[in-house]
């Protein structure tokens, strides 16, 4: 187990958490994740006019993170498929605290005192109130290298799941995605699918994470879980035959999990879920 002592603590002390949801939801959310209070004026009712400018910045954050060649989400889905049924949470900073000219460079429209989101996590409930489906994790770490935002995506996801009081998180990502490095920090990712024809890219895995607050806090502190098993088999992300074969085993009732981050060659470690883990 290794500990990163600088990044997350510094990010939590310099950035402001924010939450976007309908007004009636705030009472059931954890607005002191890891002991850090979400300021009342950083709680935005998605149906209020006050949230509108922030929502536009969140759309911009999504476009900056995933780029024009990515998989942009229609703007209206930030309401209908995100903040209205679920929660958008994240970390931001006041515009006048950004590096000079960063606001213009990023194409953000913001007054000096406005909150500029630097990262967000979006999830909708699957089986409310404890099971959530995360579908967007965006961060400007790469776009703002001068701010040294390393670890921001992981911290944002941990913070969001704590705010949502999530104990089971479901999500989907591509076998080739760098996001696997983030998701694998939250423990073994049980595979619901390995090959997913229902998704735009069939080489997508659907996973499930079992969580608790202490685990989220450790992840937020930068503590890496390490490999869960010493003896995984490795999935080469472009070996679609192997991925399909794994899917067939899942559909026959076998249970598998991604048990660590991809290695330097991009191969993903997978192992059967033991009866102990399944329990």
């Amino acid at each position, binding site marked *: 187990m290794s500990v990163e002592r600088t990044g997350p603590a510094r990010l939590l002390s310099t950035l402001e958490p924010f939450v976007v949801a309908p007004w009636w939801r705030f009472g059931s959310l954890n607005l002191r994740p890891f002991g850090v209070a979400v300021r009342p004026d950083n709680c935005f009712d998605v149906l209020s006019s006050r949230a*509108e400018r922030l929502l536009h910045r969140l759309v911009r954050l999504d476009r900056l993170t995933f780029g024009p060649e990515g998989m942009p989400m*229609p703007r*209206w*889905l930030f309401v209908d498929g995100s903040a209205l*049924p679920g929660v958008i949470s994240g970390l931001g900073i006041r515009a006048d605290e950004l590096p000079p000219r960063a606001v213009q460079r990023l194409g953000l429209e913001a007054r000096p005192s406005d909150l500029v989101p630097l990262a967000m996590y979006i999830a909708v*409930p699957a089986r409310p109130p404890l099971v959530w*489906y995360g579908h967007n994790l965006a961060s400007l770490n790469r776009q703002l290298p001068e701010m040294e935002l390393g670890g921001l995506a992981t911290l944002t996801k941990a913070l969001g799941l704590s705010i949502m009081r999530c104990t089971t998180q479901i999500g989907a990502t591509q076998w080739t995605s760098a996001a696997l490095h983030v998701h694998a920090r939250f423990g073994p990712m049980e595979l619901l699918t390995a090959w*997913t024809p229902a998704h735009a890219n069939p080489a997508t895995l659907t996973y499930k994470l079992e969580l608790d607050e202490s685990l989220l806090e450790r992840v937020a502190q930068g503590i890496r879980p390490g490999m869960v098993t010493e003896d995984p088999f490795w999935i080469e992300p472009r070996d679609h035959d192997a991925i399909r074969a794994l899917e067939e085993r899942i559909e026959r009732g076998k249970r598998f999990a991604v048990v660590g981050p991809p290695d330097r060659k991009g191969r993903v470690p997978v192992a059967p879920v033991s009866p102990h883990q399944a329990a």
Partner: protein
Amino acid sequence: MNSYVVIASPESNAWHTARASKRHVIVLDPLRAPDAHSLTPLQPPTEGDPEHAIPRWAVYDCAEVPGAVIAMLRERAADDAIAPFAPLAVILAAPHAEPGDWHLFGLNLHSDATERTAADLIEAAIDLLDARQATLVLPWSDPTLLTLCERLGSVELLCAQVALHSSQPHAAVLMRRRGELRPEGLARPDLSADGEDDLALSLDRLRDRIEGGSRVFLEVDAAHAGRLAVREVAP
């Protein structure tokens, strides 16, 4: 009686409620490859009008796995046993964080749907999801809004102009099953829109009332056919 297809994963409550429904319904699991190969004709359009087009991954992430896609099927000829699913209308659903509450969105009607189809599908969706109440975002110009008010008695207006729906003004409304939403309050003809020119002003006034703490309900205007009346419960 219409038939329905519900696409929902076992991770969603819709998987269980749809299977328990008394309606004629087929449930498909997007997590299983054999079912997933049947989904294409049931999808909302992925290209075109940006208010209705939705990428394939977003349907999976925002509806199929956590919630549901609900399709109303056309009636098929008796000898048409092997035709693929032919939907008349499709709507997406995501559960709210409050158990029993659902959000409906991404309504798509095929060209031969009638004026009643959308409201029929919305009512069926509420039933198939066993929803206590449901929210819906739709354009003010959509006749479905009036039809829903006719059928449900009234709907609560949660937001007069929903952000990021940019092509035309959209309302967010809350629907409860018939008989459960009986607003008292004051009729407010001054808050109703009297034609398109008046709409923007009316929406600003409605937004101000809601953000000022009022609850606002929409119902059919008994005195003016085809028009919505506004009822306000002040804070």
